[in-house]
């Protein structure tokens, strides 16, 4: 378990309702309505807590006939706290994790359900967004400007800015025939 995973799990467990849910799931696998009835909470509140527990890796969901059942991930709770705190911190891994977290935060702030809410004004943040959007383009394929515009218009109305900035950031390259996606080492070498 990484430090970030451990922090996420501990944060998630620091809630009485979620502990009550885990106690119930320790006895047997259950579905939302049954948990709601047993714990005196509404079904949407139980779903909310189960989502947090699932994201933290404490619980797993599976389908059983008509119900979505929830089960305790016992192996997570078999890990001792001493094991977690004795695990050595890998600085490079920590750095990568921090970067990934920052990236996630930027993506969550600007992209909602696959649509770009606004184009970030900070270059660093815009770069992260553009790196995400450029994944819509295949490597080794030539795109006309119209095709590029159509793909980017799915994300934001200002597709012209996105197209220009992708080229400026060397995520897309262009010549007279059109645009193509640049592999990152290729972009850096050329830049």
């Amino acid at each position, binding site marked *: 378990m990484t430090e970030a995973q451990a922090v996420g799990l501990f944060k998630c467990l620091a*809630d*009485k*309702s979620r502990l009550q849910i885990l106690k119930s799931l320790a006895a047997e696998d259950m579905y939302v309505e049954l948990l709601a009835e047993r714990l005196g909470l509404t079904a*949407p*509140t139980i*779903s*909310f807590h189960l*989502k*947090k527990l699932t994201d933290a890796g404490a619980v797993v969901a599976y389908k059983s006939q008509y119900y979505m059942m929830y089960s305790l991930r016992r192996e997570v709770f078999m890990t001792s706290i001493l094991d977690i705190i004795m695990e050595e911190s890998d600085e490079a891994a920590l750095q990568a994790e921090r970067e990934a977290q920052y990236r996630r935060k930027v993506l969550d702030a600007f992209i909602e*359900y696959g649509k770009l809410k606004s184009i970030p004004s900070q270059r660093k943040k815009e770069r992260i967004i553009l790196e995400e959007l450029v994944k819509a383009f295949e490597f080794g394929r030539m795109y006309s400007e119209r095709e590029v515009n159509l793909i980017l218009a799915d994300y934001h109305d200002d597709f012209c800015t996105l197209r220009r900035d992708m080229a400026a950031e060397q995520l897309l390259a262009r010549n007279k025939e059109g645009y193509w996606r640049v592999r990152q080492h290729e972009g850096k070498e050329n830049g």
Partner: protein
Amino acid sequence: MNSSMQETMLTFFDEKIATCGRKAEMLAEDGRSDEAVFERIRANIFDIFRKMLRVGIRQSGGDGGAVKSFFLEKLEQIPGSWHDSRDKAEQHSDVEKLQIENVKLEAVKEIRDEFERIWGMGQ
């Protein structure tokens, strides 16, 4: 909407805000911080509409009908984007957002029910 109805509605808001605040405190003390946040969100919704009612009363110059239409318009207008947001969250199985939008919309429903009840009693 006469002044006694306006007072009843304002008292409803005061009581709701106080109740949600107390519940939020109790839940937080009980180690249920997320549910405490939901109560604070509910309290905020009641507070927004209490402010709207006060604005309506101030702007109406004593015209009860004007207060009623101003408030009903706000009851439609303000939660408009919350409905969209809830629908989007539902489509994308975003349980966390869905719960928050539901809490907001449930509070609006309570306000509407109470408003209609008070208005109906005064007819």
